[in-house]
């Protein structure tokens, strides 16, 4: 677990260290982990159909929730350790700094997804659950954009993420186009391939 590693480093355990600016180090590490987890979450569906391992789907919710968890920790570090709870700065940053505005939007959009990730909510929302959870696509795009805009000059790494995101979303576009008209994601949930009953284990692709 990355979090365990960072905790050790923060307290200088086992010779680990966070360097001269531990706050930025933790903030960046959590942001990066959140982004990585978002990408991994998005790759579950393609990997599942490419490998023919339907059981992978069960990992998806856990991965998504971990992504949310790290985004929350990332935000908390920013607010508490970086801004030192200066809410005036927070307000100014969210209003005036586009990369913060974008990151904040992504985080806010993740909240309803996390709240509706329970089996009960899945059942209750049925097909609407699918539509709601497609928010993960714009969220992932916002997260990459947020990363891109906060980099000072060296955009190679954000561009790499952009490439990965393009692959993951492009894969879906291709699949949707190839599906018969009645299975189009807007007309019917693509989850119909596995189950349309809204069963808890097969909430379709997101």
């Amino acid at each position, binding site marked *: 677990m990355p979090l365990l590693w960072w905790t050790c480093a923060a307290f200088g355990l086992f010779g680990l260290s966070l360097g001269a*600016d531990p706050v930025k180090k933790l903030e960046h590490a959590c942001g990066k982990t959140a982004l990585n987890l978002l990408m991994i979450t998005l790759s579950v569906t393609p990997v599942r159909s490419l490998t023919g391992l339907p059981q992978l789907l069960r990992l998806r919710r856990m991965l998504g929730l971990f992504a949310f968890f790290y985004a929350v920790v990332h935000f908390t570090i920013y607010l508490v350790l970086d801004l030192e709870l200066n809410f005036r700065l927070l307000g100014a940053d969210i209003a005036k700094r586009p990369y913060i505005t974008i990151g904040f939007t992504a985080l806010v959009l993740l909240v309803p997804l996390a709240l509706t990730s329970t089996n009960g909510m899945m059942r209750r929302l049925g097909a609407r659950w699918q539509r709601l959870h497609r928010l993960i696509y714009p969220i992932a795009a916002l997260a990459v954009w947020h990363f891109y805009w906060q980099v000072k000059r060296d955009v190679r790494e954000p561009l790499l993420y952009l490439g990965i995101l393009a692959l993951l979303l492009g894969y879906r576009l291709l699949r949707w186009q190839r599906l018969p008209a009645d299975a189009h994601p807007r007309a019917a949930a693509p989850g119909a391939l596995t189950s349309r009953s809204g069963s808890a284990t097969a909430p379709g692709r997101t």
Partner: protein
Amino acid sequence: MTPRPTPIAPSEITPPEVYFSRRTLLAAALASAASGCVRAAGGEPAGAPLAYERNARYSVSEKPNTYDEITTYNNFYEFGTDKESPSEYARMMRTRPWSVTVAGEAEVRGRFDLEDLLKGQPLEERIYRFRCVEAWSLVVPWVGFPLGKLLGRFKPTSRAKYVELTTLYAPQQMPGQRAAVLNWPYVEGLRIDEAMHPLTLVVVGLYGRTLPNQDGAPLRLIVPWKYGFKSIKSIVQIRFTEREPNTAWNVAAPHEYGFYANVNPAVDHPRWSQATERRLGSPFLAARRPTLPFNGYAAEVASLYQGMDLRRYF
């Protein structure tokens, strides 16, 4: 935090003229301790000891950052864009022999060995604030001498309105230069009156010893009232010009990094605020502090910019 032992690169082998025995090192350490010089708490300064005097007039009373903090958290894109990259890779740079080319609007031009440039130049220690454009800051005990004293020797002509400084270009030794992150070589510049200002330093040492490579060995600039990127490292050329030089960050993103780059809490970077900064090495939750106009050096330098719109000339 203990620095890892590192293999000795040719650049690190002490040249005979600064070779010193363990005994003289000990004596130097005792002498400097006796004279009340700053000691680094975190990390032992490497490099050869320098003879210098503390300049109290130009030193701030804030507590200097540790040697480790100053030498493991650097922006020196020639060695990579991570803060840790310079301390990891800078040992690839050869700093001896080193020469500086002087060109442009000056009577004395040519190529000068580092030793000749430093000969007879008394060194001072000055504890300056250092403010990065990324909104973090340090307090650093530099050793050097006023740039004006060096420039005067080249007899700039009346057409010398600016000074342009250039960093070493050597992709073999500077792996970061193999990617076009900036327009290499790195170029910086000052108006001639800024360059001649007594606060503007040529720096050759840190914590009483020769500069480590990642901090810009063997000689660098320090302009304490400007954002850190103005303080160019590992200088190989000085050129006097009539026109404002095209400086590296200004060329890379002109709307984000101006030529002047004076520390100014009232003018934000387009993507982040400059009103406050985080002082590295502070306890948790006590690092953020207001940024001061001209980084706290307004009394000395504000007059240089009288009548200028600092929002326009940021």
